[in-house]
């Protein structure tokens, strides 16, 4: 049914019988994902839930091209990325994916603005090499875009603050800005509100939803919070390395 090159109909993410075994070939080998079939459309906002140890982070890392599947096929934007080498996976990550982690993971030596600019800095040479005309990713352009994103997450006064000077919620908002700075098609968030209080969590979640609707970025958000899961379009439930439930959230889709 899905045809390569037909970008409107191709799912953004398509996993077929994806397995993951840790310590492969060793006596303590352990299969933690047992044949996952999953497809995510462009612009979708999905929650990934499940008990601790069910394989949510593992699945997210495979989707994020940070880890390799032990079996099965992964297509990202219609392209088979299962067999890509490290550099190709890194480039694909850089060009189409964004990450938000539970523990913020900003670089402490860089200011908030610089943290948001880092992905652009990483790829400047690469972008210039690919098309000299595409110098829109230059220093000033990326600075402007980073500043606009920090404004959007309500951190106008924190451009030059180091992560250490920011609260947990503020740091997570910087991380969100960073994940979006290159306009990714998919953002993978692993418990982005995991160690935030309820108010900050709501705040962060609202921001993610807003970027999703304004920019059409797809999100897969791992969460333990049923309240937040309820605010997603789709809820995927993982139990013991298998998809135990996958349902549209009627309240959201209707609204």
């Amino acid at each position, binding site marked *: 049914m899905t045809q390569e090159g037909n970008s409107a109909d191709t799912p953004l993410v398509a996993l077929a019988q994806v397995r993951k075994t840790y310590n492969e070939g060793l006596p303590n080998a352990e299969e933690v994902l047992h044949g996952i079939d999953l497809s995510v459309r462009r612009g979708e906002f999905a929650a990934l839930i499940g008990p601790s140890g069910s394989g949510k*982070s593992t699945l997210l890392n495979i989707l994020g091209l*940070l*880890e390799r599947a032990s079996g099965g096929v992964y297509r990202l934007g219609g392209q088979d990325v299962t067999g890509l080498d490290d550099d190709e996976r890194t480039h694909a990550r850089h060009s189409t994916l964004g990450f938000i*982690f539970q523990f913020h993971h900003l*670089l402490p030596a860089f200011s908030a603005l610089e943290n948001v600019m*880092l992905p652009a800095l*990483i790829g400047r040479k690469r972008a210039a090499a690919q098309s000299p005309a595409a110098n829109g990713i230059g220093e000033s352009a990326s600075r402007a875009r980073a500043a606009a994103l920090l404004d959007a997450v309500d951190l106008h006064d924190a451009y030059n603050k180091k992560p250490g000077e920011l609260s947990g919620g503020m740091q997570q908002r910087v991380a969100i800005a960073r994940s979006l700075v290159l306009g990714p098609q998919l953002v993978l968030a692993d418990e982005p509100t995991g160690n935030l209080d309820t108010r900050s969590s709501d705040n962060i979640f609202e921001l993610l939803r807003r970027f999703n609707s304004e920019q059409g970025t797809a999100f897969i958000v791992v969460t333990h919070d049923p309240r937040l899961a309820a605010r997603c379009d789709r809820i995927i439930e993982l139990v013991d390395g298998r998809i135990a439930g996958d349902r549209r959230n009627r309240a959201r889709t209707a609204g």
Partner: protein
Amino acid sequence: MGTLGFEWTVALRFLREGRMQTALIIGGAAVGVGVIYFITAVLVGVQSDLIRRVTGAQAHIVLKPPEETVAPLVAATADAPRLASVQARPQRLTTIDGWTTLARQTETTEGVVAVAAVATGAALAIKGNASRSIVVLGTDLNQYMRVVRLDDKLTQGVLRLEPGEALIGVELARDLGAVLGDRFRVQSAENASQVFQIRGLLDLGSRELNRRNVYVDLRGAQSLLNIPGRITNLDIAVGDIMRAEQIAARLRAQSGQLVESWIQTNNQVFAAINNQNIMTLLIRVFVTVVVALGIASVLVVSVVQKRKEIGILRAIGATRAQMLRVFLLQGAMVGIAGALVGSALGLALVGIFSRVLRSASGTPLFTLHFDANLIGIFVIASALLGLIAAVLPARNAADLDPAQAIRG
């Protein structure tokens, strides 16, 4: 973040972030470079002083005709002692045949910078009642001074050797009771004699030479020694005196004459210099290795400390090669900074010790001079050293699995 690339920006930021560690490795590298700079300066100073004194009044290489061996027949006879005493007259001077060609050939030999023809032999200097045994050295002064400097040895008078003029050592002048401008007679073993006027007094660096050497014009010496038109040796100067022996060997092979380098005649001095060179080389190698290990170990620790940050950078799109370069650059930058600080340290040490350390003659062993080339070499070498030291830590950083690093 300026317009520097990703690697430079992150490398600089990491170094600045670990301020204490960075200061420590730069300090370590600086001490290493400073020590190497200092011992190099001391070594060069000590050795050039030593060599100056040893080779001061002597040519780097002397080419002579092969000695005529005294027939062993004499020794074999029963009444050898008597024969030996009968034979006690001076051996006939041996001279070099066709020396002008040989001089030209020698001059064009690789490594040779100057050649002077010399007629030399034993004689007596007589003034009034005093007589001393001397060595007459007849030469063309201009030619000779390109082989052995005399200008820095002149204590009185002028450097000039017209016929009938002589330059003599200060001790000899005292022994003869002669002063500048005085005349004295030279009588050779061949029973020729000539009167010379003293035009200059020389301090040749040793009592022995000051008591013995009398420089006269070539023709005067030739007639005194009864070898008209001929010479007894070629005195030779080379560019690199540590290679004198190799050059002497080549001359020996191509001329068939007896060729002696200063290294042969001062074997112990040469051995001492060689040992010094080996020792300092060892010190330099050890210091270099220690500095490299210091840089490497601090960077290895830094990679471990920055595991998470490296993981994030990889997750947001930095390639393995980019991470590798981030850490290689840190090694190179630390090396460059260490070389600059270390050169300043070395200069300071040389400045202080040039006042303290003096040679036997009282002159400073080395002088403080800013050698931009040497510092340039240190900077480049140190940058390379830092780069090499950073290879292992940089590979650790590049090989880091981002998923593992981020999980914690």
